[in-house]
């Protein structure tokens, strides 16, 4: 199967890889202890299936002991032991390796190898998603091949370009800028994948990827986002669209440290002037939706009936007037105390959807007398400036974690990814309550209040959450997609009976 991918991988080593393509390949090659099932239930242990660990037991509220599968081997033949698990956590944690995933493993106090087949994980505190954190965020790597590599050099090691894993797939080759090939490991201890090989074909952008699919040069594409591309795929006889809930949510984030955007009422007025429905229809046609708040379709809390700010230009104008922002000089932009109501919005040049949406927002805000200045930036610069808080507003697009607990990274006071500086004791306490709930039924109303708090405070405008559609060739059967990671179930995909040679 040829997978069209817009953009090459960076490195094929779990703790240091950053981009999508790399993570998709890595997920095929390296084993986790256990993995989420299709239900994406992160809260309790029933949502997990064994992978490297054949079973696990909770010894106390802070300890889980994993028993490793006896047949598990690295693809060079060396058996996988608990030492590898210990080693892997150490790599993730090493500041020299500087893994971006280290914060997700922060709740893990330590892992010890009780014997070759038993790895014992101790957590720092009691919370419902302990298993999720250690199983979902930790890939196990071969200690015997990586131990000798200096940690700061891991990313540039030869291993990171030609990894030896223990997943259902085996690395074949990586031709940078062109393709990455893996093949089915027929000896894998949980049974071989149906397909023989997977090829990631690097293409310059989604549109070209779609064209490659239409031309039969590729079989699958993770997301067809925009309306025109979707319509092209929908009209192609050899392809079909496989819908799945998207982990993505995008919108505008205010830097609330910068006046006048520290003014909650001003932010609310601006949020009310944004016609999110029109933007979503323009971008995605019928294939996207307006999120209920800071969540995406994929998260199980997305169905909560959260209260939102209405789209109401009149109310927005009235609110702005009331705040003293008026257009006295008739230039179409409101001002207060001689200062025009301007908002500089950083948008990465790499995202066509965000560029387009930003221009629509610009047009909509102009109608209520707010001038939006779009500043397109290369992604690296965009990321650096927003991380440093050097911005007034940013057009973000977040790939959310299956667990809503990770919303904390963005909104909790002083959290590492809280780029806009939003700080609300009310939110923090509501969040703590929600995260402590041990069942979904108990948690849902609490999460709804979390989302409503954010909607009310308007630290951002939550504009769109696409309805993801993978484009897949009709000759493929059994295509199941787990929303958080579209290729998670690829081992069970197969060629349709009539497509077999």
């Amino acid at each position: 199967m040829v997978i069209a991918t817009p953009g090459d991988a960076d490195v094929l080593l779990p703790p240091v890889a950053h981009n999508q393509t790399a993570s998709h390949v890595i997920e095929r090659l390296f084993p986790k202890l256990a993995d989420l099932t299709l239900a994406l239930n992160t809260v309790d242990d029933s949502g997990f299936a064994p992978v490297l660990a054949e079973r696990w037991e909770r010894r106390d509220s802070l300890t889980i002991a994993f028993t490793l599968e006896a047949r598990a081997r690295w693809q060079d033949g060396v058996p996988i032991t608990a030492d590898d698990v210990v080693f892997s956590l150490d790599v993730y944690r090493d500041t020299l390796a500087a893994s971006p995933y280290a914060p997700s493993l922060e709740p893990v106090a330590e892992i010890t190898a009780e014997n070759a087949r038993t790895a014992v994980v101790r957590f720092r505190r009691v919370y419902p998603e302990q298993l999720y954190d250690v199983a979902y965020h930790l890939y196990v790597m071969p200690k015997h091949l990586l131990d000798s590599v200096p940690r700061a050099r891991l990313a540039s090691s030869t291993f990171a370009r030609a990894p030896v894993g223990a997943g259902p797939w085996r690395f074949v080759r990586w031709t940078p800028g062109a393709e990455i090939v893996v093949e089915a490991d027929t000896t894998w201890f949980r049974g071989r994948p149906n397909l023989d090989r997977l090829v990631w074909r690097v293409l310059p952008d989604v549109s070209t990827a779609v064209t490659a699919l239409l031309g039969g040069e590729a079989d699958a594409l993770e997301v067809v986002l925009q309306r025109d591309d979707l319509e092209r795929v929908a009209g192609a006889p050899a392809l079909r669209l496989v819908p799945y809930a998207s982990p993505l949510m995008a919108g505008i984030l205010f830097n609330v440290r910068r006046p006048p955007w520290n003014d909650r009422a001003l932010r609310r007025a601006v949020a009310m002037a944004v016609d999110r429905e029109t933007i979503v229809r323009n971008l995605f046609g019928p294939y996207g939706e307006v999120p209920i708040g800071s969540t995406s379709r994929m998260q199980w809390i997305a169905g909560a009936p959260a209260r939102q700010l209405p789209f109401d230009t009149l109310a927005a104008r009235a609110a702005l007037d009331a705040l003293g922002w008026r257009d006295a000089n008739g230039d179409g932009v409101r001002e207060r105390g001689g200062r025009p109501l301007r908002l500089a919005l950083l948008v990465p040049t790499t995202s066509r959807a965000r560029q387009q949406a930003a221009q629509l927002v610009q047009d909509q805000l102009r109608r209520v007398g707010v001038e939006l200045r779009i500043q397109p930036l290369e992604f690296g610069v965009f990321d650096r400036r927003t991380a440093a808080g050097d911005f007034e507003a940013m057009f973000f697009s977040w790939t959310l974690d299956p667990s809503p607990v990770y919303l904390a990274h963005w909104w909790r006071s002083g959290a590492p990814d809280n780029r806009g500086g939003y700080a609300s004791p009310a939110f923090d306490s509501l969040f703590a309550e929600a995260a402590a709930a041990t069942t979904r039924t108990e948690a849902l109303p609490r999460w709804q209040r979390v989302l409503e708090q954010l909607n009310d405070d308007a630290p951002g405008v939550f504009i769109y959450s696409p309805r993801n559609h993978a484009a897949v060739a009709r000759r493929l059967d059994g295509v199941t997609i787990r929303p958080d990671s579209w290729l998670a179930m690829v081992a069970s995909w197969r060629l349709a009976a009539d497509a077999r040679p």
Partner: protein
Amino acid sequence: MTPGAAAWRRFRRHRPAVLGAGLAALVTVATLAAPVLAPHGPTAILDPIALQLRPPSPAHPLGTDALSRDVYSRVLHGARVSLTVGVAAAALATIVAGAVGLAAGLLGPRTDAALMRSVDVLLALPRLLVVMTAVALWESLPLAALVGLLGATGWFALSRLVRSRVRELAAADFVTAAVALGADRLRLARHLLPHVGATLVVGATLDVGNIILLEAGLSFLGLGVAPPTPTWGGMILEGRSLMFNAPWVALGPGVALLLTVLAFNLVGDGLRDALDPRHRGAGLA
């Protein structure tokens, strides 16, 4: 018949050049009269849902883009950036080229050697890459800085032509006479300027086309003027990802770009043939 009139006659007879001049005039008029000629504003979002990506029709002769803006109106307005940058940067480059060429030709062999060696080296730099690096590293560059950058990297070849023309003239009798009469170098430069004028005018005209292409290339790489200001290169960039679905988005600005550059190149060729009789025959038939 004065030399000027003779040149004008030669230019008028040069049919492609007249065509080019007509085209250039048309583009200039379009630039100035864009607000009158364009049925819509360049950034006017007409109806983001119903009028998105409409193919060309009587209402929208060049179709609409993903934001339902009228491509025709945007192309008209896009001429402004292209033309402003092209003409201003070419003018700047020409002034520098003239100054450096005169200096090299008149200030003695040492200055000459130093300047021309430097020009050799500068000529070896890929212009697009240098400008690209500067633009990308400075994150957001005002239009004037872009003009400065394109002008500052555009004078190398022309300065060399000017210099050799100056050297040729310096050997001529009237210059020798002027030197014998004790004319200082500044005066001499003033004497010579009209004579290198032809070289400068031709060089400037041809460089306008080059610079317009360069600016479009930068915009195409996402390194140009920020949206929503329409630029042809930026419009082609927007149209690029849509080229399979809505080719008209990239087609309109591309043709406009082509015609504009073509116009300046035609005029430049015509001027060269008209002003520089030695060059006749080597140009375009």
